[in-house]
């Protein structure tokens, strides 16, 4: 028989927070919510309080010198979680200003004890704790007074079986602050400002008794309250174990001849990178991929960062979106993070039971991200690809490729190694015309064509033609006819200058 205590984990009611806490908030824990002014501490506290409190398990919100309570109520009621009926019923606000103004922490503690005994709360919030710290300075040995106060408060709350939150600001994390020692949980909120974008981040620096997800996680404050974007990997990790065996089936691309080039279509669940210069037809290929899915009864999701979504970018995609066969993820928030995009994508995938996903394009995606995330773009992209793979969908990503004919590159992000398959598109100059060629560079664990094929685009989409066996040096952009290339170098150089006038 196990005699160890079983710690209940409470659902905080804040989307994503339970995941990064490692399964919820431990019952009877003594927590500190810290961060600079305006980072969302009070909102986080209120959102948890309204979710946790019930008439049988009420909450006590002690307001200390910080924000005037009328102001707090005025602003907090703008959030969807705020419920007027809960006040004086399952939630009790208590103002400690009068006690705190005396600077006597004992008196404040006595009042807290009295209120706790009166309301028998299961949850206690002290907002803000900074004022307690400042008030304690009024007396002889502030640090020691504060330590005693925190110690007594912690003991009181734990024996009273109350889960407690101290809300404080300006804490320096390197300080040997007595609160840090006593606290079971440290929830740190931050704001990262870079250029014109501000990104909110949350970190669980400590949570006794459970494994939290380390690091900074982004969150957003909207009209419904706080939404934490837990890392994409956590939600799908379990799934990928069950779906570990790669699928043998293939999905059709919607472009005739391309499927044969891929060795019979793209293996289901693969991620495909389509790289090419501007205007080479990447988005058209992506649209064909989604349309082919719709024809086969598969729904899709497109994350579009390219053009104005209100301009009809591509009639096929616009129609698919309109008919509900394709979901659109189109976030233009200035504080956009990859984790948020992954959550948006996964929720659209679930909603539509989608099996095909298009990200058009990675270049636009990078630009759409808040500057603070751009440094980690590759790492985040890798998380995104694995999250989507975990969801079992087939992914097509487009990537802008600068037309450079001195080297052969498939992606500016080194995204090539993350994807299972790569198609590259190039412009070539033949007979004073810009022609397009396409090749399948890689299909993991599958045979595929190695031909460079010319293709054209008209109102019906992409048409893949034949290889250009009489030309070579196609990837250099200025192909030459083979018989010329076979000539000695000196003559070949001359041939270069006369090549445009040669017959095709």
């Amino acid at each position, binding site marked *: 028989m196990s005699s160890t205590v079983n710690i209940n984990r409470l659902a905080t009611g804040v989307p994503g927070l339970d995941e990064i806490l490692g399964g919820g908030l431990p019952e009877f824990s003594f927590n500190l919510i810290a961060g600079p002014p305006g980072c969302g501490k009070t909102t986080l506290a209120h959102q948890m309080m309204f979710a946790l409190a019930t008439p049988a398990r009420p909450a006590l919100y002690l307001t200390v010198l910080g924000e005037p309570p009328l102001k707090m109520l005025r602003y907090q009621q703008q959030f969807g979680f705020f419920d007027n009926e809960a006040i004086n019923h399952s939630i009790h606000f208590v*103002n400690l200003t009068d006690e705190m103004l005396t600077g006597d922490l004992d008196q404040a503690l006595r009042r807290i004890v009295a209120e706790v005994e009166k309301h028998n709360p299961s949850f206690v919030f002290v907002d803000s704790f900074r004022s307690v710290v400042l008030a304690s300075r009024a007396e002889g040995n502030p640090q020691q007074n504060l330590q005693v106060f925190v110690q007594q408060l912690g003991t009181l709350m734990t024996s009273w079986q109350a889960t407690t939150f101290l809300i404080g600001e300006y804490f320096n994390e390197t300080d040997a602050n007595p609160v840090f020692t006593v606290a079971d949980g440290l929830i740190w909120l931050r704001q990262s400002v870079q250029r014109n974008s501000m990104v909110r981040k949350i970190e669980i620096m400590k949570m006794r008794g459970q494994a939290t997800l380390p690091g900074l996680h982004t969150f957003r404050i909207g009209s419904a309250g706080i939404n934490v974007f837990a890392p994409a990997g956590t939600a799908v990790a379990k799934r990928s174990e069950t779906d570990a065996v790669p699928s043998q089936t293939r999905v059709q691309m919607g472009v005739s001849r391309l499927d044969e080039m891929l060795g019979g279509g793209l293996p289901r669940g693969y991620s495909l990178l389509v790289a090419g210069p501007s205007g080479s037809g990447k988005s058209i290929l992506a649209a064909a991929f989604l349309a082919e899915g719709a024809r086969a009864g598969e729904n899709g999701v497109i994350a579009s960062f390219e053009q104005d979504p209100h301009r009809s970018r591509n009639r096929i995609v616009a129609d698919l979106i309109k008919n509900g066969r394709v979901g659109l993820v189109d976030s233009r928030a200035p504080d956009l993070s990859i984790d948020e995009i992954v959550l948006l994508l996964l929720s659209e995938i679930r909603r539509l039971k989608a099996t095909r996903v298009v990200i058009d394009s990675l270049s636009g995606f990078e630009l759409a991200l808040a500057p603070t995330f751009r440094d980690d773009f590759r790492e985040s992209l890798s998380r995104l690809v694995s999250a989507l793979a975990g969801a079992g969908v087939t992914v097509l990503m487009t990537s802008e490729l600068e037309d450079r004919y001195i080297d052969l590159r498939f992606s500016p992000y080194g995204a090539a190694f993350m994807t299972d398959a790569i198609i590259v598109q190039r412009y070539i100059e033949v007979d004073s015309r810009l022609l397009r060629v396409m090749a399948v560079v890689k299909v993991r664990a599958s045979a595929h064509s190695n031909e460079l094929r010319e293709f054209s685009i008209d109102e019906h989409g992409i048409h893949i033609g034949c290889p250009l066996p009489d030309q070579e040096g196609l990837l250099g952009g200025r192909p030459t006819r083979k018989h010329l290339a076979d000539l000695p170098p000196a003559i070949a150089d001359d041939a270069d200058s006369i090549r445009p006038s040669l017959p095709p």
Partner: protein
Amino acid sequence: MENEKNSPLVATLAQRVGNDADSAQIADAIVSTWREIEIALTPIIGQRGIATLYKRTLYLTGATYVWLVGIHEGLHGGMDLAPLRAAFARQNKAAATAGASALLHNFHELLASLVGPSLTERLLRSVWANSLSGPPAQDNSP
């Protein structure tokens, strides 16, 4: 602005004083209503918070009822309602009734402008609940 007569605090006061009250009874009723407001709000916004709202209400109402001006000067700490009672008792019945209605109405509007009508109703519910559960209004029918 909401009609004074529809204001729930004014209705509460009317229920307490009935039709035959003299100005001294009106003065008692307004003081007891304020006491209940104080009891309802002090835990949430503190003594200083409620005293500041009280002072602002007197200022707003004093624009029309000048005899309310200056009865609450130099305010620190809690509220002393004795000057309020005295000021009302000095008026005739009509003036006291009108002043009391205006005072409570203005307070209600002030709080509603800060935290919204819905939360105001929730916070002050105990005030009108007390008045409804109190002794019934005088019934003169045989």
